[in-house]
Structure formats: C-alpha cells, structure tokens
C-alpha cells in the first residue's frame, strides 16, 4: 500500500517533470509567428478562396523553407473554413485569435462581409485586419480605423482609375463629355459601394451614368442587357461577382454589345470569370492591381522550394499557379511577411511579435521599387507606403484584356484620383466616428504621423 502511494507520487513527479520539460522546450522553440487563415474552399466562391489562400500559404511556406522564417522566426498557420459566411467567419475569428504563442497575428478574410463583422472585434482585441482590394473603403482613414488596412487599393480608388482609363481610350478626359456609361452592379453591399463616386465623377467630367442592378446571384440578366442595348452606352462597367461575370459576358454577346467596351472590376477579372464565358469573353477588359503569370522570380522560388523535389504545396491543381487569385494570395503573403519584418526592426528580431506590434509594422510599411525587386515581385506589386493617415498605401491600378487564352496587361500603373477619393473617405469615416463615439488619433500616435484634421471634419466628428 505504502509502496503504491510512493509509486503514485513518483509518477506524479515524473509527469510534472516531463510537463516542465515540454514547457521549457516550447519556450526554446517559441520563436513562432502564428498566422490565422479564414479561408473558404467549399461553396459558391470556393474557386477564389482556394486560389488566394493557396498562394498565401505557399508563400509563407516558401519563406520558411528558403529563409528559415522571418529572421529565424518560423511562420505557422491554421485554416478555418468560413464558407464565405459572416457568422462562420466570426466563429473562426474567435477560434483562432488566441492561438499561437502571441495570438493570431493578422486576419485576411477575403470577404467584404466578414471584414465588416470583424472591424469592431479586431479593434477591441487589438488585432490588425488586412482587406486588400475589398472591405470597407473608408477604413483607408487610419486615424479612425487603426486596425483595419484596405491595403494596396480600394474600390473608390479603382473607380477613379477606371474612369481615367476610359478617358485615355477616348483620347483625353475632356472627350468624356456627353459620353454614356452604364454601371452594371451586383445587388449587394459590395455592388452598391461605387455608386456615389461614379455620380461624383459623372458631374465632374460631364458624362452620363446609369446604374443598373443585377439581383444576386446574377445568373439571369436578359432584361438588364436589353435595357443597355436600348440605352446605347459607350462603355459598360461590370461590377460583378462570381457567376454574374460570365453570365454578363455571354448575355452581352447575345444582345451584340462588344466585349472590349466592358470594363470589369478586379473581382470580375480572374480566369474563373472569363473561361466559362468562352468565346464571349474575348476582348473583355478588367481592372487589376496585379497581373497574372508565373514569370516573376518570387513565383519561380515558390515552384522551386515548395513544389520542387517532390514536396507538396497547397495547390492540388498546379496549373492554377500564376493565375489571378493565386498571385493575389502571394501578394498577401508578401505584405504579411514584410509587415512582420518591419515590426521586428523596431521590436526586436527573432522574437514572436504580438498582433499590436505587427499592426505597427503594417502601418509603417514602406515597400519601394528597390525592395520589390529584392522580393522578386517587380511588376507584380506596386510601390506601397502606408501611414496612419493613409491605410491604403498605393491606389494604382492596371488594366488587362482577355485574349481568349490569358490575361494580357494593356496599361501601366494608373494612379487613382485622390482629390476625389480622399475627401469622400474622410467624410464617411468621420460619420462613422461620430456614430460610434470614436476619438480619432491625432498628431504623433504610436510612432506614426496621423496628420491633422480639417476644421470641417472636426465638426462632423464632434457632432456640430
């Protein structure tokens, strides 16, 4: 009996020792940076989700394999299936936010809806959210949305670039006068978002704009296109999403509207949007904040280190590597890693950073042309300079045309018209601040310049 008790205690001691050892071991290899992935690989938008997160994960994997992590800090990640649904997205966010040695570093939901649901939560939890090319446009004002980063470019910026592009095609912005443009938009929050900025530009340049809604999901557009044919516009802006895009192109062909007069957003400009439309898509133009293709050294490195020598990458269908969504995922990877690197410069190399520290890293991102070349992403990524004042950083857009086989870039980077976009962002953000009772960051806060508020905006925020 006594011996048994002794044995029991002995075992307990041994167990405790083992546990302590394991804990110590965990501390030794604690230099890990956990990156949560709110991905979607089933449901109607799975083609986008699997490509984007495939590229994102492959890039992180490549950094681990090629460089041994970021300054020795291994990148780890875990996926959680959101099915592109807001409620599942929130569940996944809550599940992953506390994982890893320092918690979820940065969230990238690839869904405007989920981004909206996370804004307040992430702000309370002090975790940054990157919504690259989607999400809440006015979050570009970092003084009011410190944790939300619609990096690279946002919907409104894209729209001004699009009108510039159309102007260029017409032979000058003054030629836009009297032209007719149709805005064919998806009947959702995402689709509606550019109506005000288009109206503003119509007034400024003197063209006529007609907004035509396509109800979700958009697989029936006969009446809309008949209306377009009757209206005889010079250009059609296709603000589509998912199944709406190929349907629009096919219906346009049926009513005889030329595809090279249709300009899509970047959510209409992936291979998945044009291949199902077949012949009808030939000549279709879309905006893009990055090109397709796998000639970039960074993609070649992924192929070499992740897919080379028989090892297994994230993409089951390797022919999709280098397509729109995949490359967008790689850009997401670059931005995340660069943010971590920037934050490590300030808070110490070789350490796991907290989400708050990584947030600082994102806000102080400065990726210039030289750095882009070092990253092997020249032509893939535009120069980016983020600040507290401007959470967008870039804003330039390229245009590409589908030749029936692949996307061909047909323009250089076209800068957005911030003289239109910025005041709209500030006014909308100020309205949000007022509704929520948020005090905007001012002056030098957390080490970055937040700029100063104009008297007018101060009035809106304070309710005057």
């Amino acid at each position, binding site marked *: 009996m006594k011996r048994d008790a002794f044995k029991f205690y002995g075992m307990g001691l041994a167990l405790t020792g083992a546990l302590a050892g394991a804990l110590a071991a965990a501390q030794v290899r604690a230099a890990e940076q956990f990156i949560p992935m709110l991905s979607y690989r089933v449901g109607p938008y799975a083609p986008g989700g699997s490509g984007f997160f495939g590229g994102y994960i492959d890039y992180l994997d490549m950094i681990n394999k090629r460089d041994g992590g970021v300054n020795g800090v291994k990148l780890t990640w875990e996926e*959680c299936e959101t099915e592109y649904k807001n409620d599942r997205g929130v569940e996944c966010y*809550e599940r992953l936010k506390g994982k890893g040695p320092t918690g979820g570093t940065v969230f990238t939901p690839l869904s405007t809806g989920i981004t909206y649901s996370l804004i307040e939560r992430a702000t309370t939890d002090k975790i940054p959210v990157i919504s690259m090319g989607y999400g809440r446009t006015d979050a570009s004002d970092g003084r009011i949305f410190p944790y939300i980063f619609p990096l690279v470019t946002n919907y409104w910026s894209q729209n001004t670039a699009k009108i510039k592009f159309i102007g260029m095609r017409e032979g000058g912005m003054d030629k836009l006068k009297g032209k007719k443009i149709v805005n064919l938009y998806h009947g959702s929050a995402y689709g509606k978002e550019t109506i005000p900025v288009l109206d503003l530009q119509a007034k400024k340049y003197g063209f006529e704009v007609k907004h035509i809604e396509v109800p979700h999901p958009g697989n029936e557009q006969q009446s809309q296109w008949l209306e377009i044919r009757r209206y005889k516009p010079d250009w059609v802006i296709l603000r589509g999403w998912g199944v709406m895009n190929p349907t629009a192109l096919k219906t346009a062909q049926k009513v005889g509207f030329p595809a090279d007069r249709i300009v899509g957003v970047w959510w209409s400009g992936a291979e998945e949007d044009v291949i199902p439309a077949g012949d009808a898509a030939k000549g279709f133009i879309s905006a893009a904040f990055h090109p397709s293709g796998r000639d970039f050294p960074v993609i070649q490195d992924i192929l070499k280190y992740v897919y080379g020598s028989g090892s297994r990458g994230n993409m089951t269908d390797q022919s999709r590597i280098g397509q729109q969504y995949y490359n967008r995922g790689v850009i997401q990877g670059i931005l995340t890693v660069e943010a971590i690197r920037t934050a490590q410069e300030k808070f110490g190399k070789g350490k796991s950073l907290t989400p708050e520290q990584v947030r600082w890293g994102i806000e102080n991102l400065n990726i210039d042309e030289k750095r882009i070349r070092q990253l092997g992403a020249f032509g893939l990524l535009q120069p980016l300079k983020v600040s507290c004042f401007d959470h967008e950083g870039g804003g330039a857009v390229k245009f590409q045309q589908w030749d029936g086989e692949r996307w061909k870039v047909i323009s250089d980077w076209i800068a957005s018209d911030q003289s239109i976009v910025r005041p709209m962002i500030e006014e909308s953000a100020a309205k949000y601040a007022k509704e929520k*009772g948020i005090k905007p960051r001012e002056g030098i806060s957390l080490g970055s310049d937040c700029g100063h508020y104009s008297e007018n905006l101060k009035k809106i925020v304070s309710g005057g």
Partner: protein
Amino acid sequence: MFYREAGQFKTSYAADQQIFPIRQDRVGMALLLAIAYGVVPLIGNDYWFTAIMIPFLILSLAALGLNILTGYAGQLSLGTAGFMAVGAFAAYNFILRIPEMPFLLAFVLAGLTAALVGILFGLPSLRIKGFYLAVATLAAQFFIEWALIKFGWFTNYSPSGVIDAQTMTLFGFALDTPLEKYLLTLTIVSVLALAAKNLMRCETGRAFMAIRDMDVAAEVIGIPMLKTKLLAFAISSFYCGVAGALYAYAYLGTVEPQAFDLNRSFQVLFMIIIGGMGSILGSFLGAAFITLLPILLNVVAHAVFGGAVRTAILSNLELVIFGGLIIFFLAVEPHGLARLWHIAKEKLRLWPFPY
C-alpha cells in the same frame, strides 16, 4: 423510474395547470437555467460566448418564431430571414432617429414593426395554403431584402448598405463585453420561450393548432380564421424581428441585408424540421443541430486530421458528414429531435421494467 410520477398529486387547478406538471421536469428546467446563468458565465470564455452560445440562442429564437407559425399554426413560410432583417434594421433606425431611445424598447418596437410587416405578408394565407403560401411568403423575403438595399434611408445612407449597431446601454451601463451580451440574449430568449410555451397552452395556441389540423373544421367550431391566421403571422414575425435585432446587436455588431438572405430562411426552416415541428424544445434542438454541429465537425476534424489531410478535403468532408447526419436523423425520426427526446422520456418512465 426517472420519470415516475407516483406520489405527485395535484390537489388544485393551479397545480394541474402549471407549465411543467412533473417534478422532474421542473427540477431539470431549474437546473438548466442555473447552468445557463451560473455555470456557463464562470467557465465560458469569449469564444464560447460569441461564437457558440449567442448565435445558438438567437437562431433558437428565430426557429421558435417560425415554429409558432409553421409548427403550431400550420402556415408554411419562407420569409423568416426577411422578418429578421426588418427587426434588425428597425431597431437600428429607432435607436438612430429617436434620441434617448432605450435599446430594449427599440427591440420591442422592432419586433412590433416586424409583426406589422408579417401581417401584411400573411394576408395571402387567407386564400392559399401549403406550398403555395410558402411561395407567397418568398415574396416577403425578396421584397424586404430588395427594399433595404434599394432605399438608402434604411441604412442611413451608408455607401455599402451595411449598418453598424450602436452600443447597447442599460441604465447608463454599456453592454459591450461578450459575457454581458450573452446574458442579455439568454434573458430575452428565456422570457420569450416561456411566453411561447404559455401561449401554446392557452386559447390562442389551441386555435392555432385547430387551424393547422383542419382549417374547415376549425372555422365550423367558431375559430375566426382571419384573426387567428394573421395573429400567428404577427406573433411569429415578432419573434423573428427580435431575433434579427439581437443578431445585429448582440452577435455581429455590423449587419448588411445579405446576412438575411434566402439561405437564412431555409436554415431556420431546416431547424424546425430537424428539431421538431410544433415543439418549443424542438426549436432549440434544431438550432443546436444546424448551427453547432458543423462547427463541432470542423473542430473535431482539425483536431484529428489537422495537417495530415488537405483542408479542402476536410471542408468537403464536413459537409458530407453533416448532410449524412441530417438524412440519418430524419430517417430515424421524421418528427424531429424533440420527438426522440419524448421517446427517451417515455422509456425512462418505465425503466428498468418495460412491459
């Protein structure tokens, strides 16, 4: 044995008419509430409150609303999510436009607004029924979603049509932590579930059931068809409206009309089919099945196969298992999970000596 009623005598009408006539049920219910109010807040963390308990309770409330209409009154509806949307956006506008509006009052008004809209779309039920009525209520679903997107006033002219729920303040005390939101949701859902339970025992509930079972016979015995059917729509929509307001305020914080699309209506309909038509308990069981089981499958799959199997396969597998379980449960018990619980209770009553 567990449900032996021997020795429990009812000596007054009050005792005979109480909600839970059997002592075991009363104890069980008290225990459940004690756990929900006492134990869960102690052991739960943010994840449990915000990702598990709050959505479960809110969708239970929506399912309860639909169950009153479909399960008890026999009026098939596909407009549930639409009525939830009315509740959410009405609460937002009441708080936004009327200064000093207490949010609880706004929730009640939101429910009443949803009830009004429900009556409007319930009018066809006087002439059509069954699947035809389901199609008519589908119009509510599409119309409400369309109207909320189309008219900027509802969303206070937010450029994207998404509203941000204001902070809920009760007597100057802001309810903004997950625990507080959980307790608020729990209280509202408990009160409304109790009200529904009582409603179904009184004259109105019996009239509902009479109409469900045979409307001609019900009319013959003097149940006013117009009033009762519209009342069923009103009460059901009230519940859905409050659920929608809670969905926006206690759960997501921001909400767009798309959160209440047709899929949500179907989801709630499946909840009451799987949980059990015409059963209060069934609404809760169904909500748990539809909302929590996929999450459980996801967590388990990641714990078991994480890293070894591709996540795309895991995600698909999750849907396959979930669908399989739905078929299994409906094949085993077409009357729903609540019926299974009743059978279990019957068996426990006789255990261990079944004749």
